């Protein structure tokens, strides 16, 4: 059977399930009795097993089957969740992930049977309940019998046990609809089981399947011809249900029949038609048989009747399509060009005899609105919540906690903050690195923490939030903080700086040393960090994304690394200024204010120019000097000062003239020009076709 066309879907869905399992097992560790979580885990393991089986990955199927068994027992209450069990479950997940990686690379699952893990899982099954393992085997036999009996049974008829009848009666008293749905799968269908699975999935979104014939297990193993029948409880009406099933492709026919009374004498409603009457009788008969025959299979049946209540709380999934990122890039470039063209029109309208055609201006304004909106929507398409990278962190921190033998907990906020997809893809490694740093270097050992009167459980935080046109991600801990003196000594020892330099350097400058290549202060190189490929890589990566990183630290109380990233990469709002004859753009979100400053207000501190602005002392930067531009001779008494900010630092840039605010498209200067100090972060094309450079406020400060 050729299943390669489903491989991609399989890989995506498996990843989702693994993530889901990982999240839920984390919850389970905290709340071992949480029934919803246990059910959720059970379902995820079950789906994984089914998918792996369909795709023919036997080892993966076996492993997930064992997981499912363990959870089946947990759900029945025969096995209690323990910390060691959670450990083994995580090992299982890692193993499943390893299978998946192998599949991604080679389309084969590899040779690793993961016997030790399976043995451990079996241990839980046997340890808690000596009978369980044997029961498992017994269980298989009646199932076979049931299958053959259902094959001989009249088509469309279905046997119900007491439990299921109760469920139906309960549903009916709640005025819910009960249907018997017979589904006929197309004879040409390759993946009958997958189609059936989709039918079940569709149905489970609407309500609860309380019985299926053949059993869910047999359907998954493709032990059915082309028909199967389910009894289904729902709040939706008949048409909706029929449609939902018909929407699954390669389904040939659906026959939905409403069951309006309980197939048992307790029925309160009057039979509505002769046909129903007949059915009722048939059912009542089969119930008798089923009661006797089905007892050993109870555990199995229970599974199919997981509470529907948790389903109703499921979030409605957004309708999505996959788009190749390159196509988006093309779209983005087109929008960029449109904006350049629009800017051209704007400048043309300014130079022409003004006022003459206000209609022209109106149209330009209209065009401006359209391009801005278009740009925003294209950008939004490229946005993803940072959750996609952060979701694997809780497990990572848990692993670190075991490995380093320190207790720690990770608190994350703002995972729904959105960033450009290209940035998200690159962000995983730096963040992971910072978290490891916090866990390994930041947090003290448990004894030290107790001595210092801190909570023995170390706390690591990851906060993300939007700040203007930037997204800030903070990674911090309540550990030891950075020991500036130790860094200073280490730097001298390593020869990074001389003793004289070390003596004159400020705390801030010392901390910045940490971002130099090959500088690690960990006294012992551990598995986790301390190999000297560290913060400098993080810094380079963040800067290549157009962002910046800084550290706040207090010795003994912890440190916070905060990463600041631009929300959008390609188009920004900027203030255009003129210095001498040259035009420059300054990104609007780094600008705090524009001030008119009297020359006499400039003071000197340590022979550097500063102004006192409402109590803040702000250094003045003469752009003429830095940018090497000849000064216009006219000496005004007033200076135009653009106040820029970076974090909580400020600086005032002296410019000659303000041109105005403009939406600009950022273009790279290319790799040839090396302006030394990175003052220029890029270039943009003005309406008249000239190039203007973009000043990077971050490096100016």
């Amino acid at each position, binding site marked *: 059977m050729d299943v390669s066309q489903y491989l991609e879907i399989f890989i995506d869905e498996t990843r989702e399930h693994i993530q889901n399992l990982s999240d839920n097992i984390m919850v389970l560790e905290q709340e071992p009795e949480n029934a919803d979580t246990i059910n959720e885990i059970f379902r995820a393991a079950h789906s994984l097993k089914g998918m792996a089986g369909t795709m023919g990955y036997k080892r993966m199927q076996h492993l997930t089957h064992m997981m499912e068994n363990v959870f089946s027992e947990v759900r029945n209450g025969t096995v209690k969740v323990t910390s060691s069990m959670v450990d083994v479950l995580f090992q299982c997940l890692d193993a499943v992930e390893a299978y998946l990686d192998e599949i991604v690379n080679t389309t084969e699952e590899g040779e690793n049977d993961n016997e030790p893990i399976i043995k451990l899982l079996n241990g839980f099954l046997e340890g808690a309940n000596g009978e369980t393992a044997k029961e498992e085997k017994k269980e298989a036999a009646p199932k076979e019998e049931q299958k053959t009996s259902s094959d001989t049974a009249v088509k469309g008829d279905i046997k119900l046990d007491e439990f299921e009848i109760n469920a139906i009666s309960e549903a009916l008293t709640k005025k819910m609809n009960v249907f018997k749905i017979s589904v006929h799968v197309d004879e040409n269908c390759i993946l009958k089981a997958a189609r059936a699975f989709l039918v079940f999935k569709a149905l489970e979104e609407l309500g609860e399947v309380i019985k299926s014939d053949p059993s869910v297990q047999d359907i998954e193993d493709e032990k059915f011809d082309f028909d199967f029948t389910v009894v289904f409880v729902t709040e939706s009406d008949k048409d909706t249900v029929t449609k939902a099933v018909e929407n699954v492709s390669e389904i040939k026919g659906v026959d939905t029949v409403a069951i309006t009374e309980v197939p048992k004498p307790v029925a309160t409603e009057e039979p509505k038609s002769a046909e129903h009457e007949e059915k009722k009788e048939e059912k009542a008969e089969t119930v008798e048989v089923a009661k006797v025959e089905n007892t050993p299979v109870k555990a199995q049946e229970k599974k199919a009747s997981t509470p529907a209540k948790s389903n109703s709380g499921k979030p409605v999934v957004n309708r999505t399509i996959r788009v190749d990122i390159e196509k988006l890039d093309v779209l983005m470039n087109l929008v960029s060009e449109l904006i350049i063209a629009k800017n051209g029109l704007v400048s043309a309208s300014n130079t022409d005899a003004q006022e003459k055609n206000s209609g022209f201006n109106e149209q330009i304004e209209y065009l401006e609105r359209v391009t801005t909106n278009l740009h925003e929507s294209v950008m939004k398409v490229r946005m993803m919540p940072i959750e996609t990278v952060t979701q694997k962190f809780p497990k990572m921190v848990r692993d670190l906690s075991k490995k380093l033998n320190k207790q720690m907990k990770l608190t994350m906020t703002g995972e729904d903050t959105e960033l450009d997809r290209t940035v998200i893809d690159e962000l995983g490694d730096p963040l992971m690195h910072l978290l490891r740093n916090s866990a390994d270097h930041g947090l003290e050992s448990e004894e030290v923490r107790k001595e210092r009167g801190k909570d023995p459980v170390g706390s690591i935080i990851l906060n993300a939030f939007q700040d203007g046109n930037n997204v800030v991600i903070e990674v911090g801990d309540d550990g030891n903080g950075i020991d500036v003196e130790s860094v200073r000594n280490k730097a001298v020892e390593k020869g990074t700086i001389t003793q004289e330099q070390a003596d004159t350097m400020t705390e801030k400058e010392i901390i910045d040393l940490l971002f130099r290549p090959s500088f690690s202060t960990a006294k012992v190189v551990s598995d986790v960090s301390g190999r000297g490929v560290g913060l400098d890589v993080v810094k380079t990566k963040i800067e290549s994304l157009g962002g910046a990183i800084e550290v706040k630290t207090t010795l003994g109380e912890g440190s916070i690394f905060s990463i600041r990233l631009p929300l959008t990469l390609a188009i920004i709002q900027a203030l255009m200024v003129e210095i001498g004859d*040259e035009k420059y753009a300054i990104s609007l979100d780094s600008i705090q204010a524009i001030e008119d400053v009297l020359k006499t207000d400039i003071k000197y501190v340590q022979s550097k120019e500063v102004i006192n602005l409402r109590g803040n002392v702000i250094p003045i930067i003469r752009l003429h000097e830095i*940018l090497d531009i000849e000064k216009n001779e006219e000496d005004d008494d007033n200076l135009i000062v653009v106040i820029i900010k970076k974090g909580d630092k400020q600086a005032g840039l002296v410019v000659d003239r303000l041109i105005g605010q403009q939406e600009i498209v950022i273009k790279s200067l290319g*790799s*040839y*020009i090396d*302006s030394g100090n990175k003052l220029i972060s890029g*270039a943009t094309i003005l309406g008249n*076709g000239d*190039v203007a*450079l973009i000043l990077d406020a971050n490096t100016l400060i």
Partner: protein
Amino acid sequence: MEENLIDNQSTQYIVVDLGIEQYGIDIKYVDNIIRMQNITRVPNAQPFFRGVINLRGEVVPVMSLRRKFGLEDDEFTDKTRIIILKPAQHEALGIVVDNVKEVVSLESDNIEKIQNGKYEKRHISAVGKNQGSLISLLNVNFIFEDIN
């Protein structure tokens, strides 16, 4: 057959003036020849870069060969052109020349390789002879290598 052989051995060069010398640029590296336009200076860049220009929506750096070769600085006239070079696997680069004269086909018989000696000379890979005048053939790959 014989004609083909001769054709294969000849290379087309764009001949430009730079000061009193003539330089030839292999046509396969040339993407475009444009008239002089506003060049935006980039502060603190390497001195031989005049700045950047807008070439159909892309920002392209422009280099002065005169500055590179230690000649007097460029004087922009009606005849000044920017030649956009774009070898495979490189970003585009503009070079300023005084004048673009013609395109010539040089057969390999008329090209004389020169020894790679001093640094200044390495920008020239060979000297071509065309109707009695000498053309210094630019080593375009070296120009790109030399930037970094």
